[in-house]
């Protein structure tokens, strides 16, 4: 139960420090000592912050909350890769056993025009909320709804919708995209709702509104690099982008 067991590591961290949105930022170097392989990446940062506080240095600001890979709050580029590059893993679920004693680790915030830096590793992702607000819903009222089994949804359709709905809205797709595009994020919601009978009524309006919002928020265009899928901690598939394009075309033809 000790964190100082034989397998602990000493690491060199290069962390992006930036006081505020308009302040200049730079990489600072810190030591992370006696790191247990059982620690999560964020627990390692917690320990580093404790040391910083004791030496009178401002701790590193970073977003996090559930620490179980579902809330989508954590957002760090580790060694150049969003969430650290372990397949289907958020940075809060990345464990130190995937590093080795003596490693140098570079930690930076999401970098995208649509995500201004707030402080250190914290960025402003409200543009993703704006996209959902533009049409990422069915316009059903609270109450007065028919029975849940009144509309049958074949299992493959429900599964397809669920595959898309698993998106946690972390923004890694944007951070991973060379164009800073939020196409995967947007397409996941478009595809989920377009696959279900409940969402079909507004499918055309939705796809137009959401792609328009996407452009208005400062995100880049999609040019099929598929880096988004590689960065996505939930494995959201780029096939949903094709679905969005198809929905867009269908809407234009109607």
């Amino acid at each position: 139960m000790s964190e100082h067991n034989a397998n602990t590591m000493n690491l060199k961290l290069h962390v992006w420090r930036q006081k505020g949105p308009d302040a200049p930022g730079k990489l600072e170097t810190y030591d992370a000592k006696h790191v247990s392989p059982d620690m999560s990446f964020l627990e390692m940062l917690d320990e580093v912050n404790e040391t910083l506080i004791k030496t009178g240095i401002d701790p590193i600001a970073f977003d996090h909350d559930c620490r179980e890979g579902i809330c989508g709050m954590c957002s760090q580029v580790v060694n150049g890769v969003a969430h650290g590059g372990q397949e289907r893993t958020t940075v809060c679920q990345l464990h130190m056993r995937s590093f080795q004693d003596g490693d140098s680790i570079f930690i930076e915030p999401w970098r995208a025009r649509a995500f201004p830096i707030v402080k250190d590793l914290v960025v402003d992702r409200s543009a993703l909320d704006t996209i959902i607000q533009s049409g990422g819903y069915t316009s059903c009222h609270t109450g007065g709804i028919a029975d849940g089994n009144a509309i049958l949804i074949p299992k493959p359709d429900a599964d397809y919708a669920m595959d898309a709905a698993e998106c946690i809205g972390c923004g890694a797709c944007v951070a991973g995209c060379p164009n800073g595009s939020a196409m995967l994020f947007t397409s996941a919601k478009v595809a989920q709702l377009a696959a279900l009978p409940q969402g079909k009524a507004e499918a055309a309006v939705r796809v137009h509104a959401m792609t328009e919002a996407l452009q208005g928020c400062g995100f880049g265009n999609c040019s099929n690099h598929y880096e988004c899928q590689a960065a996505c901690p939930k494995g959201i598939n780029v096939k949903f982008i094709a679905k969005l394009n198809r929905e867009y075309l269908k809407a234009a033809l109607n």
Partner: protein
Amino acid sequence: MILDGKCPTGPIEKTWDKHCFDLKLVNPANKRKYKVIMVGTGLAGGAAAASLGELGYNVEAFCYQDSPRRAHSIAAQGGINAAKNYPNDGDSIYRLFYDTIKGGDFRAREADVWRLAQVSNNIIDQCVAQGVPFARDYAGYLDNRSFGGAQVSRTFFARGQTGQQLLLGAYSALSRQIKAGTVKMFNRTEMLDLIVIDGVAKGITIRDLITGEIRAHMADAVCLATGGYVNVFYLSTNAMGCSVTANWKAHKKGAYFANPCYTQIHPTCIPQTGDHQSKLTLMSESLRNDGRCWVPKKKEDCGKHPNEVAEEDRDYYLERKYPSFGNLAPRDIASRAAKEQCDDGRGVGPGGRGVYLDFAASIKRLSEDTIRERYGNLFEMYEKITDENGYKRPMRMYPAPHYAMGGLWVDYNLMSNVPGLFVLGEANFSVHGANRLGASALMQGLADGYFVIPYTIGGYLAGIKPGDYSLDHAEVKKSIEDVKGDINKMFSLKGKKTVSEIYRALGKVMWENVGMARSDASLKNALKEIPKLREEFWNNVNISGDGGELNQQLENAGRVADFLEFAELLSKDALTREESCGGHFRVEHQMPDGEAKRNDADFCHVAAWEFKGVGKEPELHKEPLKFDNVHLAVRSYK
């Protein structure tokens, strides 16, 4: 004082419908004149803000995260209950009502629980309409699974991410209202005080977590949907930002805190690996549908690889102790049973604090693919954290703090004793009694948000004049000054301890003395240790930076300061409640076989505490509980 929950009387089946009819209404054209504050945007708060906005009220909603989609409701895995009886296995509103009352060990209000069971079916319909992709069978019908504490399959689910999907449903409804302009959303904003004017809740004081600005927001009614407080144990399954702060500030302004000692320790969480640990991760109760809990019969087998322990040397302790419910025994019972085995020296893994959850039999019966389809994401999560493959060797589990059944006292209308202050979801105390059944938290959050508060808040607002408040009131200025004063005081200390060091010490005191088993001596010990830690905090804590910027240390410090006061109330409530019931287990009060021993003669009541000052004796108010429909009986799952 004897408290009155103002429950409607008459046949239980008619109570809610009759009450809805009796409630005063606000004319549609007048609704926009009323402003409502919603603090918290999880299942309860998100659903409520969306529904109230849609009705035409002018809503301001607040959350501390960067988006309402992050609320910790998102982490709920297994499912949501409803009395649809789709599987034709004998479910009904009455059975869901009965199971919830019994599951709560007869410490909840009958009328509130009935209403919950009644509206449960509407919730499923609502979520389906929003596009929540619940599991379906090949014919296209909604699928169900079983959960603890029930012998029917009434749990609806979306893989292992039901909470996420329901929250995103509520978030989408909320987003639609934000776009429509009926809800104004304030992200990264934390409530730090409740503003009460002439005894009535009229606003909140908040801190903008980005700029550090402290300002007041006023409204005709304030709703708290701010979740639970089990982070008082430091290590829990809650998100890092979950706190008692909003509830505690309201408590200090007069709202009674009910049954704080009712905390739920969830039986299946991944065991702790070291002192560095920042949180514990839950593995859905649904795993107990197909996983069997066991420990070795012999102590000398505990160090062996589990697959090398022969079948006859395994103790499937839940199946042995509770043959009719088996591995689906309710959470409080399953947690205590796990602790019992470990205390007996037959625990496994580091420190002997673990039991096995074994899928071998189910994999043999159903195939690994079927198990993967049902729980794939949970097995993945388990492997990421432990580096062990749950398909090949049994998972290791240990109980961890998970949910708070206690919360601010509310009447049947979800209004606290402070007029104008409403409390929704986990933040209130109302329906789970002393133990919550699995898949009932999502049900309660959405019931309160979609189908209760939209009706009951109208009954209150119809009786008051809209806009009867002012930012210039002396109470508003005082509240802002008090909040600033606390923050300045924290910065001025310049001590030697970090916030986390004191927080961890508090967690240790709480887990060891007020955790799964509580005694007169342990509780008295906690009551001795907590004030010492509080004193240490207010003399020796060190917070760097300043208040006029994003400062996560300051945020944590404020939350820990409130836990340091609240912990004392929780322990005092546990000491006062001289009985065992649900999640509250007093070692002095147990049956010969170790089961919880209730004391209905003296404790069949809600304990609601009134704040009298930090470190001062709080005043106890009681609300007697009456059981007209369910017979008060010893709770048995044997």
